[in-house]
């Protein structure tokens, strides 16, 4: 499957995590794409940590306002019923547990739900932006990423090798191959994507994987 289709597949599956009447923060990259697939019957308000509750679609050319961007610095519009506020208020909202769901990208996730997604030692210094705040503050944290890296090595590990974004913060991992929950007893495989077997997933995962008794096959 080509890269774009894989991204789309992950984004579509991630959309199912979003409940109607909820406030959601979508990270930069594939998480932002999730917005494109939100079912029209769901009432969802998207939060942008730069100070907007109610991100709308991208603007038409004539609607572009350079003062209106999302956290990925892309020009956007605001929905009806949106509100603007300061960064302090925005992170008060995030830190205070008012965001129902945050969907973020990941480089590595550990058995304990640790997440690493902000830096690779020796590489470009970028900064963590709002990720460290989001993983601590959102009621539910879903990480979406490829199951293995470019070299085919697992990204779901016994423990992370990269500097952490947060410790014990991930609730669910959605990859191109599987959906895995972080439970108190470790990782639980709950869904397997089309074209993969349980063994495929287990062997592509370094961390110990418990297979849920109701694991669903070929769900996406």
């Amino acid at each position: 499957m080509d890269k774009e289709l894989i991204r789309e597949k992950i984004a579509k599956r991630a959309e199912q995590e979003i409940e109607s009447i909820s406030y959601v923060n979508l990270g930069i990259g594939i998480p932002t794409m999730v917005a494109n697939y939100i079912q029209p019957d769901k009432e969802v308000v998207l939060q942008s940590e730069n100070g907007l509750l109610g991100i709308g679609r991208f603007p038409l050319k004539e609607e572009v306002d350079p003062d209106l961007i999302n956290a990925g610095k892309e020009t956007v519009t605001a929905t009806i019923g949106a509100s603007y506020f300061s960064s302090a208020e925005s992170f008060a909202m995030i830190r205070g547990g008012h965001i129902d769901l945050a969907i973020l990208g990941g480089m590595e996730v550990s058995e304990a739900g640790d997440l690493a997604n902000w830096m690779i030692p020796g590489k470009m210094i970028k900064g963590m932006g709002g990720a460290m705040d989001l993983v601590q503050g959102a009621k539910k944290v879903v990480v979406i990423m490829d199951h293995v890296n470019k070299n085919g090595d697992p990204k779901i590990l016994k423990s992370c090798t990269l500097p952490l974004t947060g410790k014990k913060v991930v609730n669910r991992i959605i990859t191109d191959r599987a959906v895995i929950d972080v439970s108190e007893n470790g990782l639980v495989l709950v869904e397997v994507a089309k074209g993969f077997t349980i063994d495929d997933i287990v062997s592509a995962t370094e961390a110990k994987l418990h297979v849920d008794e109701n694991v669903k096959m070929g769900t996406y």
Partner: protein
Amino acid sequence: MKKILTSFDEAVRDIQDGSTIMVGGFGLVGIPENLILALRDANVKHLTVISNNCGVDDWGLGLLLKNKQIDKMIGSYVGENKEFQRQVLSGELDVELVPQGNLAERIRAGGAGIPAFYTPAGVGTPIAERVEVRTFDNKEYALQTALKADFSLVRAAFGDTHGNLIYNKTAQNFNPMIATAGQVTIAEVEQIVEAGSLDAAQIHTPGIYVQRLIKGKQEKRIEKLTLTK
């Protein structure tokens, strides 16, 4: 009631070598464009800059970087700027990366007379290695101290003659907190109006926080134009 200036050079004249400055904006949105240009022209050196980002190579705080005016940068995301990378790797530039919510709250604390507070962001990560970690209600939090500045540079859409400011949309971002945390706050505004023209219940930054006002025409460069076709 407020000092309304007409020269950007004059507005930044007393910012000296070694000053700590805070600059509003998120990416290139809501940055005080002309105050930054004036600072570049003033060529003051050894600045400590507190701002969420550090501009791009040829605009915003990137201009000060290019001109080697910044010794230390405190921010949350600096990934858009190649010169930034170069200077950090070469040891010319010191950088303190702070989670964005911690940064916003530390600046607010600086303006609000709160010397320190506890926050969950960064606990268990490298950035909390050298700070006090304390447990409240079975969750760990890191102690964060307030940030203040000698000068705060902000941008607003409207400013009135009493210094009251109103921001436009997401150009608000860090500006309101930064306005409170500077010893001297200089506001670049798109329009200056008479006191009384703005609705008193809709002021984002009360005039008490603003020492100087100046009107500036904004370029408002767009970093990532994304359209619905």
